[in-house]
Every structure is written in structure tokens, then in C-alpha cells.
């Protein structure tokens, strides 16, 4: 029987064959025009996402390596700076010490020179004083004696005065 009746279980060959033909047509059309595009789009997206994830993981690994390298360099820099500071301190102390030693030596030298100059000045002053005192003594003596004293007498008297003064100084 080709046609259906009111019985829903009645089988009809016409819709049966139509179903096969229509579905086969739909499946072929969808298989050619629809599913390849959809599945390719989904695969492209999947590939893109996986690629992005892989790239992100690679970037993260690279960043971690760079961070480690940076931390290592930072550590080295800190150690180097500490060493440099330590060396600079040592050098500064050494230079300070050297400067102080040099200053002290310089100061001592200056003091020595000043003492020598003082001594020299004192000797000069004493000599001048002695000479002046002798001259004065001679002048006084001349007035007292009221007579002229020759150069030889003057020299002899000066020497005698000096000897007398030196004897008194002792």
C-alpha cells in the first residue's frame, strides 16, 4: 500500500523514499557548502588559541629566564657595589692616613724651619745686640776716658767686654 491511512503506524513507501532522497541531498549540500566552512573556522580558531597559549607560555618562560638573569645580574651588581664601597672606604681611610701623615711631616718640617729661622734671627739679633752694645760701650768709655781710642784698642776692649759678658752669662 502506497498511501497512509489514519493509522500512524501505517507505512508509506512514498515519504520513505522522499526522506532518503531529501536527506541525502541535504547531507551532500551541507557537506559541500556548510560543514567544511564551519569546521575550518572552528579549527582555525582552535589553532589560533593553541598558538596564542603556546606563545604566551614561551613568553612567560622567556620572561622568567630574563627575570632570573636580571636577578642574578642585580645580585652581582649589588655584590660589586658593596665591594667597591668597601674598597673605596679602605682607600679613603688609607688616603686619609697618608694625608694625615704627610700633613704631620709637613707640619713638623715647618716647625723645624720656623725654629731654625727663629734661632737664626735670635743669633743675628744677639750679634747685632752685641755689636751695638760694644759700640755703645766704646762710646761710653770714650766719653768717660775723654780720649780717643784707636781701632786696635777698640777691638781689644770689645773682645774683653764680650769675654766679660760671656763670663757673666755663664
Amino acid at each position, binding site marked *: 500500500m502506497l498511501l497512509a491511512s489514519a493509522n500512524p503506524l501505517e507505512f508509506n513507501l512514498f*515519504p*520513505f523514499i522522499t526522506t532518503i532522497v*531529501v*536527506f541525502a541531498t541535504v*547531507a551532500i549540500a*551541507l*557537506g559541500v557548502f556548510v*560543514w567544511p566552512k564551519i569546521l575550518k573556522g572552528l579549527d582555525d*580558531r582552535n589553532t589560533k588559541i593553541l598558538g596564542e597559549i603556546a606563545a604566551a607560555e614561551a613568553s612567560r618562560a622567556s620572561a622568567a629566564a630574563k627575570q632570573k638573569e636580571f636577578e642574578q645580574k642585580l645580585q652581582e651588581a649589588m655584590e660589586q657595589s658593596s665591594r667597591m664601597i668597601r674598597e673605596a672606604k679602605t682607600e679613603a681611610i688609607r688616603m686619609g692616613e697618608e694625608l694625615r701623615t704627610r700633613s704631620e711631616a709637613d707640619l713638623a718640617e715647618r716647625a723645624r724651619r720656623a725654629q731654625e729661622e727663629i734661632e737664626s734671627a735670635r743669633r743675628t739679633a744677639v750679634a747685632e745686640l752685641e755689636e751695638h752694645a760694644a759700640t755703645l760701650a766704646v762710646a761710653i768709655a770714650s766719653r768717660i776716658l775723654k780720649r780717643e781710642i784707636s781701632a786696635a784698642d777698640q777691638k781689644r776692649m770689645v773682645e774683653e767686654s764680650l769675654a766679660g759678658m760671656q763670663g757673666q752669662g755663664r
Partner: protein
Amino acid sequence: MIPLAIPDMPVMSSMVPLLASATDPMSHIVDKKMHQWNILGQPVMLSMVTMVTAAIVLLILLRFAAKSIATGPESMGNRRFVSRSALGGVIEVMVLYLRDEMLEPVMGVRLTRKYLPFLLSMFFFILSLNIIGLIPFVEVQEFIHSLRGEPFSIAENGTMAIFGGAATASISVTGGMAFISFVLIQVQGFRELGVKGWLEHLCGGHELVSGSPLLYPIVLLVFLVEFFGLFVKPAALAIRLFANMVAGHTLLIVFTSFGALAANAGLGWFGVGAITAVSAVGAMLITLLEVFVALLQAFVFMFLTAVFISLMAHEEHEHDEAHGEDAAHAHGAPAH
């Protein structure tokens, strides 16, 4: 069939289709002849026109969805990988779920890639038929005919409607779909196993066939069971889909016709209104359930076809492949 007592009221005369459905729900559900159209002398059935219409609509919608899902031009940047329409988004979610969560764990990657277009076509075709069946196109057309005073049906099991109805509530339609599944399952069996392997599969496997002669009665028994199983499996597919659709639509038409039955029983406007309101709420709830059933049955038909196809795959090879895939994709083990 209960004889109709149509009240002498103009509005009531337009309820004739509903009354007819109420007194005989099956008359609403069965496939109807379209006497105005004939092919090779045979009247075209309503389900045939509905199928062709559903196929055309499906092709247009999926073609549109494919364009929005396909990778766009480079100028769009990363947006080219994103669906550019709501329909595309819905189709994409369904395809991804079916492929990644349902089919690949059962069939493995190789068979899924091979049969995915066919299985998706089957799912969406059945789904479109189921959904169209939920929309009362035929009832609306018959209502309009009855308002015009034209006959809404011709002879027994005929209709003036030109489109609509639940095509999957016809055993001929679900039988056709099951026949396609049957052919594909057997083709897959022959291609994967060869004739000898296919026969061994029917007899319980190589170990049983090449075993002791004492096992031959068991081999014969297994062969009989498996041989009948070849036909029972697709038959079960056809009957399951058909029965679910018939049951759902019967329930729906019974709910929607309570008001007409009340009117036919002469309950008065208040009684008819109250019963109609309650039955309308019930019908809405049943319709929501039917939307779920439409999805579920389309999925079950497609999924069981996938399971039967995977059962015909070379078992050792598939197992090895599946284990490899599991490691790569963290999917579940094959069902077989």
C-alpha cells in the same frame, strides 16, 4: 470517533478543526494526503512538503551561520576568529559540544572527522523537522479554511493545508532516516572489517570463531542475535523517534482541545473559558517539554547512529588509537 455536535454559532463553526482533533487526536498527528498535488499519480503527503521546506530553510540558515563562523579577513584582526551572528554562535556551540564532548569520546578522532558532517546533518535535519512539527502550521491553515467556510479536509486523512505537521511523527519518515543509518553502519562495517571481519563480528569475534568446535552452538546463537540486531538497531531508532513525536503531539493536541470539548459539551462561556485557560497553560508547559524532546530525540538518533558506526570499527585498532587520543586530548575512553 465521537460524533460532533457543532453549536449553531459562527465562532463555534471555526472550531471544527479543533473539535475534530479532540474527538480523534490521531487524525491530527498522522501524515495527511495533499490531494491537490500528485507525483506519478500518487498524492503528495504533507510530510514530504514539510521535509523539503525544512531542508531548504535548514540549508539557508546553516549557510548563513557558516558564513558568520568562517574565519574572516586579516583586516578584522583577532575578531576574524569570532562568530559574527547570534545564529552562528548557537550553531557553533552545538557543533563544538557534539564533536568534542559527545562524538570524539565515543568514536575517536579519526572516525569523528570522517563522519562528523553526516552526523551533524542528520542531527540538524531531524531537529528542524521536530521543531517545525511543534509549530501549528496545519491547524492555522485549517482554521482559516474553516473561517472561509471551505472544507479543511478532503475525504479520509486528507488536508487542504499545503505545509506543516510533524514529519517525524510518521514512521515512514523516521524509517527512511533509520534506513540511511543502517546503510551507513553496514558500509562502515565492510570498509573497516572487510567481509570476513564483518561476518566474524556477527559471530562474536575472531577468538570465538577460531575457538573450540564446542563453541559453535554459541557462535550460531550469537550470529542469530547479531544478525537480527543489524535490523533491530535502526528499527529501534525509527520507532523511538516516531513514538516520542507521536506521544508528545498527542498530549499537546489533547491539552489544546479541552476547551473545544467543553464547548461541544455545552458548558457555557464561563466553563469553556476556565477550561480553555487551564488547558492553555498545560499546553504551553507541554510545548516547552516538547522543545526539549525535539532536541533530545534528534541527539539520540544521531548519537546512537554514531555508536553503531563506532561498533563496526576495527576494535583493536580503535582501542589503540583511542588510547593515544586520550593521552593527547584527555577525552574519555571509547564506549566499545
